[in-house]
């Protein structure tokens, strides 16, 4: 079996870190590069965190490309649950690995152009605001030909928002970029809060995952513990939703997810509802559905998948 070529566009971020560390030990995936963007933290920080995560996972072979330093149109907002560094209280060594000269936008364009030519199309895994992807698409619309699909953590459909009443953070942080991406004909899988709120990383899971994660056990356990929202009223238990890792889980094991197809629109004009994602479940808009929205997650299956993957860090050979 040939590996699926992916690019991880992200804003690490604790849950990004867990997603990336999972991807590192999944031979089904060929990670062409990591493209941090301004999001949970300012760009400088998300780049540094991405470099540190590569070193933590012993995957310094994967290039990291710095993305856009601000959202397209709105002032930047940052995440609220990732601590000062973006990785909670976890202290990782200063990275030796350095960021590539090429920008994330140029990396996306060149990779997708090459993929369009070769026919080996790329899956974009987006874990942060969509600024890099939107800028690349506006510069070179033809790169859509090289994208197999976008599997995105973003949006909230039947769930309420997590940053505002209506809106999920990644979309709210750059609603114009999200609008650009959702206005293309690229196939999209949306892992929204509807999905991620079905998979809560409880303290019990944290203990189990980190306990089996070998040489990354300590930092992984710290980050997971920091992730606990301690909001039983919203999430039904202690713990935090496993947002970004579900994107990697979807690419690895789509059978654990149920989806429903709909056209998706992004509110980018109203301040009250800024960043709201609206699904046309019943064909009211007259537009073709373009997004597979994850509606149901086999949470047990997903926990087992992560346990299997993260425990590979206890093996001598990572890959």
């Amino acid at each position, binding site marked *: 079996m040939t590996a699926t070529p992916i690019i991880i566009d992200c804003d690490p971020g604790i849950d990004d870190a867990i997603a990336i560390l999972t991807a590192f030990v999944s031979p089904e995936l060929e990670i062409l590069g990591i493209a941090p963007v301004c999001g949970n933290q300012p760009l400088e920080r998300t780049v540094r965190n991405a470099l540190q995560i590569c070193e933590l996972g012993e995957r310094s072979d994967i290039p990291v490309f710095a993305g856009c330093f601000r959202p397209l149109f709105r002032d930047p907002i940052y995440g609220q649950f990732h601590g000062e560094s973006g990785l909670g209280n976890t202290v990782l060594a200063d990275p030796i690995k350095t960021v590539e000269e090429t920008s994330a936008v*140029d990396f996306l364009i060149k990779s997708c152009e090459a993929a369009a030519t070769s026919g080996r199309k790329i899956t974009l895994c987006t874990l942060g605001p969509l600024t890099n992807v939107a*800028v690349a698409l506006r510069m070179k619309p033809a790169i859509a030909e090289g994208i197999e699909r976008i599997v995105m953590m973003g949006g909230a459909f039947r769930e309420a928002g997590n940053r505002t009443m209506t809106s999920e953070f990644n979309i709210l942080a750059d609603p114009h970029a999200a609008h*650009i991406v959702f206005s293309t004909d690229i196939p999209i899988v949306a892992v929204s809060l509807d999905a991620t709120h079905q998979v809560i990383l409880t303290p019990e899971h944290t203990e189990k995952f980190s306990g089996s994660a070998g040489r990354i056990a300590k930092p992984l356990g710290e980050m997971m513990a920091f992730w606990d929202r301690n909001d039983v009223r919203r999430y039904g238990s202690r713990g935090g939703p496993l947002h970004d890792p579900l994107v990697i889980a979807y690419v690895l094991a789509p059978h654990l997810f149920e989806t429903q197809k709909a056209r998706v629109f992004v509110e980018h004009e109203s301040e009250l509802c800024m960043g709201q994602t609206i699904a046309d479940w019943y064909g009211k808009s007259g537009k073709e559905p373009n997004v597979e929205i994850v509606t149901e997650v086999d949470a047990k299956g997903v926990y087992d998948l992560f346990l299997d993957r993260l425990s590979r860090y206890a093996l001598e050979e990572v890959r």
Partner: protein
Amino acid sequence: MSPHRIIIDTDPGVDDAIAILLALASPEVELLGISVVAGNVPLEATLANACKIISLSGCVDVPVYAGAHGPLVREQVYGKYAHIGAFSDALVPPANVRPQEEHAVDFIVRVTRQAAADNDPITICAIGPLTNLALALVQHPDVARGIRQIVSMGGAFTALGHRTPWAEYNIYADPHAAQIVYSSGVPVVVMPLDMTFQALITEKNIAVIGENAGAAGAAIAGLLRTFDRSDMQRFGRPGGPVHDATTIAWLLEPEIFEGRAASVGVQVSGKTAGYTYADFYGKTGLPMNATVMNDIDEARFLEMLEERLSIYGARALKEVSG
């Protein structure tokens, strides 16, 4: 004085052509490159036109870069003279230059970041929708640091719009990009319709340029005569505006313009999307991000076009006489 190092970001366009030819006729200006954007006509046509203008000027070393195919967020609208499409070979001879491989946005990012590193920022004359510039500005903070000023043909304040009653075309075509550029922290010199409507080129000027300015003059005269820009009802006298050329004229002779500091912003959505507002009196408390030109010495501007463009005639004569 060292010349102004500039990039012209453009969607040619008849008045774009005059702006580019004026810049290339002026030793005070060093044109680093032409970044092309969709606007007046689709990108394929603006790009073809840019290559034709560069060929016509004889300055074939000036690189031309293809940029954005359309606006950031809104749906695409073309200019009032969209039916021009690509300039016909009868009006402007075929091009002998080709666009570069590099994308216009990458070109702007590369040149401005280098300018920031060298502490020698450049000027950008933006005479089309501002999509390319916006896409460059979000990519790295050094892009803004590498730009001394943006001379932007765009907007309408006390004048009514020309594309819609409330909006000037370049802003209307991509209001989000305009707002990104105007709020980027780079000082903006705005050339709005209020001012450009005051300087109308007439048949008398066109005849002089057509006669004295060689092949460039013939093409300009042909374009201006084919696509008559006059509007008696609006201007009350014969002649048509040459909007884009005012950006270059301001670099050459700023003293023939009058302007005022203002805080300028763009309405990006709703019925009046593309509307530009200027706060001259600090009512909003927002930073004075722009100088808005409200007056131009029409006679001097037209004389400048006649004088400067005649160099193309002189250059042609020199070539003939060896």
